[in-house]
């Protein structure tokens, strides 16, 4: 009896335990199912995809008379995704070079510029040597005088990975493309409810027969769940939730909804850092055409790419792509989706071997700078998810030239001066920034020699002493304001270049010349050309440091400047970007530009969110600017930068070398009327460089400018119009439209004006 009782007891306990376990399992199962359902619902009904923003370079304006080599234009087209054709271009995105006729034919892309939508047309561009002589619209026969090529895609702003896609509705996808994809990936899509047992069994059979993984049994819905939520591992632990989610999705949503999401979600290739997702993007990427224009063969290839987009990509191997396409065509024929005639015609379509142009960030320092500007107005979420299109001022050609010049230039310096070769974090560094003076556009920016090693952008983050680069501000102040002694400075004013002491605030300052060599009575011109410290100090003392500071601020230096005598020789800290802006003011006839990187920001619906215009301000008279430019031309023609001429840079240009007293910084700023570049060389850790601006920075500048200006017309600084008198005798360039300036003073104070009225120099 006791035994029976104990057995009964064990049995009851087991039942209870089973009940508890089953209940727990059911509760857990229900909870898990609910969780999966919520996940699926959130994804389908919420925000499915993040759209990275895209950053574009400046567009290129081609016009009759512009200098460009035919080969360079072809290279530019290739980078823009155009394909070379042997026959006359018949589809958008093709071009043909007729070298014997010295012309190039292009069927231009459609492109959405910030302020207009451009529809591609076929054009013919004729050359004479390296000059464009004619641009013709082939379709209409009309001559065009200019043509804007689309900007290059530089990079994207994204989180983790760059998924490039454009969402399309199911109705926008041609039926043939849909049928081809279903035929290859899930032929029983409309029959099953999320998982396909028959498909699983068939795949199992095929794989067992071949003893390898030949087929997957996943449905299209399962693939979508995998891409939406899960990793790529092929394990039971991943397969189960995938299957359950597929069932849930099929229960909640229509086949059309699932199919539409699939067509927009699938991964279909890689272009450098940019992943290609969705059929629309793939159509553009592989065929440069919209979905509606795909041929039977192209639709078949698109469907065939899904399984292994990079392995059978036509960019990798036209033969592999053709083989895969033909397999799909056979399936389409078997399933009677296409006719025999269509099948035969599609087999004859030739897939050209195309070179992939990867999207690689060739200007990471510039992009960082751009991003900083953008973050003033846009959140990180907006920048990485809203699909903005950002048009910048960058010239990618110049950017590449600038980077090459800097990197090669630093290597050459290390080779010539082995003591400069350092290991670790304190290696020789440099920076180069290029501006267009007329507009302030930043055309190139290289903030260091190796971005992957150091992202510190020395163009706008590094504050260094400019040394002699500061001297032009002293002489400009002298020419503008005159001396406190009553001297009216002109380029021919005689200055005493000899040792002297400037006492201030109980201290003495004694500037010394290079090699302690003094030249006695020299003209102002010569003192500037040869960068004489002592002469400069004397002028600064006479003019007053306050005036020198005012001029520097007026021209564009924004950093605080100490009111000490040594400021005359550049004892302050400024960035290369500030120096570039200040000298751009001189290059631009006394008009200070605003540095521009971001030009336009457009959202996904082509709405212009932001347009940054050229802003400029006349801050010194054009006559004074012209005079300074003439003086600074002497620096290159006869002065401390004369070696640039011997190295092959022969254009009219002005500039200034800069070397700090302790030889820690080497600078050169130089410009033509159309282009300005600033180069800095030194060590981040403030180690001694031991080289002057002419030795370290000038060679890099010369190399860059020779390449950058190779096809530009030769221009010189233009003498400005004569100065009119205003009603009260004040030259009009000192009128009320001029700003107060950084120091809050009138740019043409009455005292200076009165003395100036006795001199026609200004």
């Amino acid at each position, binding site marked *: 009896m006791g035994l029976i009782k104990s057995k009964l007891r064990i049995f009851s306990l087991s039942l209870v335990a089973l009940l508890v376990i089953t209940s727990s399992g059911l509760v857990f199962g229900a909870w898990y199912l609910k969780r999966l359902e919520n996940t699926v619902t959130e994804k389908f009904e919420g925000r499915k995809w993040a759209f990275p923003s895209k950053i574009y370079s400046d567009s290129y*304006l081609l*016009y*009759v*008379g*512009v200098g460009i080599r035919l080969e360079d234009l072809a290279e530019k087209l290739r980078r823009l995704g155009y394909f070379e054709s042997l026959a006359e271009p018949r589809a958008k995105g093709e071009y043909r070079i007729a070298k014997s006729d010295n012309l190039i034919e292009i069927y231009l892309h459609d492109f959405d510029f*910030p*302020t207009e939508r451009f529809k591609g047309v076929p054009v013919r561009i004729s050359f004479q040597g390296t*000059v464009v002589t004619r641009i013709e619209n082939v379709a209409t026969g009309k001559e065009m*005088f*200019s043509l804007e090529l689309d900007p290059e895609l530089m990079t994207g702003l994204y989180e983790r990975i760059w998924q490039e896609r454009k969402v399309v509705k199911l109705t926008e996808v041609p039926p043939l493309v849909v049928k081809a994809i279903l035929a290859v990936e899930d032929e029983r899509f409309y029959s099953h409810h999320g998982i396909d047992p028959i498909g699983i069994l068939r795949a199992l059979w095929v794989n067992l027969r071949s003893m390898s993984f030949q087929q997957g049994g996943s449905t299209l819905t399962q693939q979508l769940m995998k891409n939406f939520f899960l990793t790529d591992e092929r394990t039971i632990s991943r397969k189960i939730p995938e299957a359950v989610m597929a069932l849930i999705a099929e229960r909640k949503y229509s086949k059309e909804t699932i199919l539409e999401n699939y067509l927009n979600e699938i991964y279909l290739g890689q272009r450098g850092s940019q992943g290609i997702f969705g059929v629309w993007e793939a159509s553009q990427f592989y065929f440069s055409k919209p979905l509606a224009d795909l041929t039977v063969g192209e639709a078949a290839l698109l469907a065939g790419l899904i399984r292994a987009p990079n392995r059978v990509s036509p960019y990798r191997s036209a033969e592999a792509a053709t083989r895969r396409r033909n397999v799909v065509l056979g399936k389409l024929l078997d399933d009677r989706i296409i006719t025999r005639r269509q099948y035969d015609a599609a087999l004859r379509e030739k897939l050209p071997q195309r070179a992939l142009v990867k999207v690689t960030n060739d200007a990471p320092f510039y992009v960082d700078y751009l991003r900083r500007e953008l973050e003033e107005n846009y959140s990180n979420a907006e920048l990485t998810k809203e699909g903005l299109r950002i048009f910048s001022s960058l010239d990618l050609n110049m950017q590449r030239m600038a980077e090459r010049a800097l990197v090669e230039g630093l290597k050459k310096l290390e080779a010539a001066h082995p003591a400069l070769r350092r290991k670790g974090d304190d290696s020789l560094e440099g920076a180069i920034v290029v501006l*267009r*003076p*007329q*507009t302030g*556009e930043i055309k190139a920016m290289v903030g260091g020699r190796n971005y992957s090693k150091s992202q510190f952008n020395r163009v706008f983050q590094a504050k260094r002493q400019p040394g002699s680069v500061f001297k032009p501000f002293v002489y400009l102040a002298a020419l503008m304001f005159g001396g406190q002694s009553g001297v*009216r400075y*002109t*380029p*021919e004013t005689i200055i005493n270049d000899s040792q002297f002491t400037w006492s201030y605030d109980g201290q003495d300052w004694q500037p010394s010349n290079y090699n302690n060599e003094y030249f006695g009575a020299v003209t102002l*011109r010569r003192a500037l050309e040869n960068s004489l410290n002592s002469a400069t100090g004397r002028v600064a003392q006479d003019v007053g440091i306050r005036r020198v500071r005012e001029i520097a601020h007026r021209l564009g230096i924004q950093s605080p400047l100490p009111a000490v005598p040594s400021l005359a020789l550049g004892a302050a800290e400024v960035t290369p970007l500030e120096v570039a802006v200040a000298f751009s003011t001189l290059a*631009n*006839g006394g*008009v200070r530009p605003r540095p521009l990187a971001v030009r336009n920001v457009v959202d996904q619906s082509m709405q212009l969110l932001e*347009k940054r*215009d*050229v*802003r*400029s*301000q*006349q801050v010194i*008279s*054009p*006559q004074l600017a012209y*005079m300074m430019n*003439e003086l600074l031309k002497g620096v290159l023609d006869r002065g401390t930068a004369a070696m640039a001429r011997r190295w092959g840079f022969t254009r009219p240009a002005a500039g200034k070398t800069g070397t700090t007293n302790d030889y820690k910084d080497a600078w050169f700023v130089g410009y033509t009327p*159309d282009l300005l570049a600033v180069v800095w060389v030194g060590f981040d850790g403030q180690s001694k460089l031991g080289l002057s601006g002419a030795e370290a920075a000038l060679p890099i500048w010369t190399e860059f400018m020779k390449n950058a200006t190779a096809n530009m*017309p030769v221009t010189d600084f*233009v003498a*400005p*119009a*004569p*100065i*009119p*008198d*205003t*009603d*009260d*005798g004040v030259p*009009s*360039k000192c*009128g*009320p*439209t*001029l700003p107060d300036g950084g120091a809050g003073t009138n740019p043409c104070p009455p005292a200076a004006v009165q003395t100036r*009225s*006795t*001199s*026609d*120099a*200004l």
Partner: protein
Amino acid sequence: MRCKSVAPAMVPGRRLNYVLATTIVLALGACEPPRVYRMPVPPSNNTILGPRVPQTPAPIPPSPPAEVARKPLPQETKIREQDLKSRAPSANSPVRETKEPTRQSSINENRATPESTVAPAPAPPPPPLPDDSSLLAKITPGISPQRAASLRLTDEGSKLLDAGELGKALTRLEKTIVIDSSNAYGYFYLAKAQYRLGRYQQSLNFLDVAESRLSGEPFWLAEVHALRGENYRALGQGQKAESSYLQALRLNSGNHTAADALIRLQAETQPVNK
């Protein structure tokens, strides 16, 4: 001497506006002698030049002739157009303290001498300048390709401005100064675009640049001054606006913008002057 403006009665018709405007210009002309332009000394030339300064002040001229039958304008008796060298400020008008001798000294010496007893009749207004607004007409054989392209783009930009497509116009016009930074017209139209966008200070900035790059083109200089006047008027600076309009009309009496604007401006200020 600061010359106050006069406010004629409003009359219909553009032609009459010109006549009135030019009459006003003449009436005020005595206070606003033509500008003397000075060339900057080339760097190698150390010569210091000065303005022509008279050694003795001129005597006060007699009253104006009686044959002027129309109702004299309020400030007329104070203005001596023909005898600018001997012009004397009125007791009631504000006088600029320091510059009279200098300005008088720079006047054309062929004008009537202080000894003449009868002031001659006002000279007829100079005829309007021929229309020089066509940019495409400036594309002549021998012009550089950059200038030609820049002018064509400027022309395109101006048409886009007229069509109200400001964004496109700005984009085009910014390219013009990239291709040819000496293209003053590009700067002028950039100024116009900024004016239309309500960015008056930036418009003024561009006008300064345009003016500095224009040389010997009174038609376009008049346009610059007229647009400058529009900007000042928009900024509420009536006096500067008026001064700019007058300058425009001095350069080109046919400048519609300045003529119309001056009439409007003076009509606005007329109740105050009454």
